[in-house]
């Protein structure tokens, strides 16, 4: 047994050492010096040795008692989905508490933190939107940022050309983004998996390139400015610029630039709450169930009479609408939009939020959005290493909890008389 482990370890160590030597050899072992190069193979060997030592330590940990227990504990969570029994305590109290806490955050937080909180909520909104498309309906969308851009540019260009304000944009953005979602959905109705991903990726890039190159209309790379929000004709600037009254004058308090962010945060927070409620309702409605059924098995769906065109279209449109809303908030928060905010990296980040949160789990998506926006801020101390740390965390996360942060809860279903006849959860086998 002992010798077995030893030979396995040495085999692993040898393999790791060879592979890392091959990698590090040319990268750090040869250093360019003018037109020739210096040979610093010793450095490469020492780096490879460090990696090998790390590999051995990990292996030793894995075969130790603690490591085994950890692995078993992680593996025993079957596939990360539990079905509710209908007897869980309603989390209403906690929800109300969270709601109040969230709403009162601006009064405690400083401006820096409030900025992060707004960004986190915007990503929550984006995550919730993409979660409908990817998490629930199972349609891999890599161009989600397009809808985000549509919402943001709607406010920026709308105010520039037709005098559209924040509230107008907030109402129109879901419809315009939903329309774009529909335009994207039609050509991809028959596509699956990789092909769908590539087409949506292209769509995202098309929107960005149009915004970048249509100089006369969008301002191209110079971007477009966004007017600050107003509420009932009250403005958040020091002096009224849009024909209203500055809010601090109206209430007779001194001017503070923070009011604008308080206002954005509170509206955004309420919108996020409404979207969360809507998504949770949709999940137990026939439409939501059809989305999930479509994700599970399209052939079975068709034979059961699910209209897959309608189902896919609604998923794309509702997802896009939510993305459009997020865009409006992003624009009004930044006060300026330009195409560099809507690159593929954003799409990837939103997708990471959805995957990390556990595909389909609303709570998970919210948590992941908070983690993924707040974590990079906390990691600022690590300066240039923070993206690396971020990446490592994601790899570790996917290895240990591939079904996401939060276990998905499936609603138990007890309609009508028959449901009452059977005591809820009495026959559930554990």
């Amino acid at each position, binding site marked *: 047994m002992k010798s077995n482990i030893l030979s396995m370890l040495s085999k692993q160590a040898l393999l790791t050492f060879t592979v890392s030597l091959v990698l590090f050899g040319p990268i750090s072992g040869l250093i360019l010096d003018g037109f020739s190069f210096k040979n610093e193979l010793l450095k490469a060997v020492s780096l490879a040795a460090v990696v090998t030592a790390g590999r051995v330590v990990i292996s030793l940990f894995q075969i130790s008692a603690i490591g085994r227990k950890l692995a078993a504990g992680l593996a025993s969570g*079957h*596939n990360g*989905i539990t*079905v*509710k*029994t*209908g007897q869980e305590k309603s989390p209403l109290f906690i929800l109300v508490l969270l709601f109040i806490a969230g709403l009162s955050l601006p009064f405690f937080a400083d401006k820096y933190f409030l900025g992060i909180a707004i960004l986190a909520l915007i990503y929550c909104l984006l995550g919730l939107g993409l979660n409908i498309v990817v998490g629930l309906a199972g349609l891999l969308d890599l161009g989600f940022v397009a809808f985000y851009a549509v919402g943001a540019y709607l406010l920026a260009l709308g105010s520039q050309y037709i005098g559209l304000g924040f509230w107008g944009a907030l109402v129109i953005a879901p419809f315009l983004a939903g329309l774009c979602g529909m335009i994207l959905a039609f050509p991809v109705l028959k596509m699956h998996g990789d092909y769908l991903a590539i087409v949506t990726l292209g769509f995202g890039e098309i929107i960005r390139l149009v915004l970048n190159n249509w100089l006369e209309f969008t301002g191209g790379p110079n971007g477009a400015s966004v007017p600050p929000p107003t509420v009932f004709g009250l403005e958040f600037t020091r002096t009224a610029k849009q024909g209203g009254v500055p809010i601090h004058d109206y209430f007779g308090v001194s001017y503070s630039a923070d009011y604008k962010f308080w206002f954005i945060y509170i509206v955004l927070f309420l919108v996020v709450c409404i979207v969360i409620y809507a998504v949770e309702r949709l999940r137990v409605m*026939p439409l939501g*169930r*059809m989305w*999930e*059924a479509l994700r*599970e*098995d399209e*052939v*079975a*769906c*068709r*034979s*059961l*009479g*699910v*209209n*897959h065109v309608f189902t896919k279209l609604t998923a794309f449109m509702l997802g896009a609408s939510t993305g459009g809303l997020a865009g409006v908030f992003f624009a009004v928060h930044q006060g300026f939009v330009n195409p560099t905010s809507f690159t593929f990296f954003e799409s990837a980040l939103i997708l990471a939020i959805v995957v990390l949160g556990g595909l389909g789990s609303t709570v998970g998506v919210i948590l992941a959005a908070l983690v993924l926006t707040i974590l990079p801020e906390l990691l600022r101390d690590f300066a240039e290493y923070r993206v690396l740390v971020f990446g490592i965390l994601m790899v570790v996360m996917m290895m240990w909890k591939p079904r996401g942060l939060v276990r*998905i809860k*499936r609603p*138990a*279903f007890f*309609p*009508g*008389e*028959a*449901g009452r006849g*059977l005591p809820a*959860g009495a*026959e*559930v*086998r554990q």
Partner: protein
Amino acid sequence: MNQPPDQTVPLLQFDGVHAYYGPVEALKNVSLHIHPGEIVSLIGANGAGKTTLLSSVFGAPRVSSGKILHRGDDISATPTNLISRRSIALVPEGRQIYQDMSVEENMIMGTTPIGMDHFDEDRTAMFGLFPRLKERRNQLAGTMSGGEQQMLAIARAMMARPELILFDEPSLGLAPLVVKRVFEVLGEIAALGKTIFLVEQNANHALKLSQRAYVMVNGRIHLSGESASLLDN
């Protein structure tokens, strides 16, 4: 059987159907008919085109020539999702239940063509037919055994109150005892007055259950006749 199989219009009829997967001709001039109240089986080896024939009822693949008639109406170009509204249900090959949904949610999905009006009643009936499903109603469908999943697939199809149920290899990958139970259930379903079209490799079981049978070889109907006489062959 409850209904005498003597009505003149067949419930389902294939009339000279050809279908292709790309360049491969999967169905070659297939003609068959199923009358109301009958149990008809279609037997044949792997790759004979049995599954293709069943899925062509639901438009995948679409037939390239010939007609599929339901009560005399040509349904070969009807949108897939409207076919199940004509009281036709499919129990697909390899079960294809929704693994990550609970047993009950799977059954709710079965009601898609008719809505939830009869859900309580039908669910009680299905739990009577399949007591195991009642025990596991809140369990994830994918965590059940193969036999239980097959039962769930049948229950899901039954939730749409179909007249005609198409079964695609219900015995596939199941233990002999479970297969026996599946065929018992098929008999019980037939006794409820449902018309059954059964596609099977397990010729022995299928022929014992059905009244008439077709034998398919290489995309063609090779033989047809009374099940009893085919069983002797």
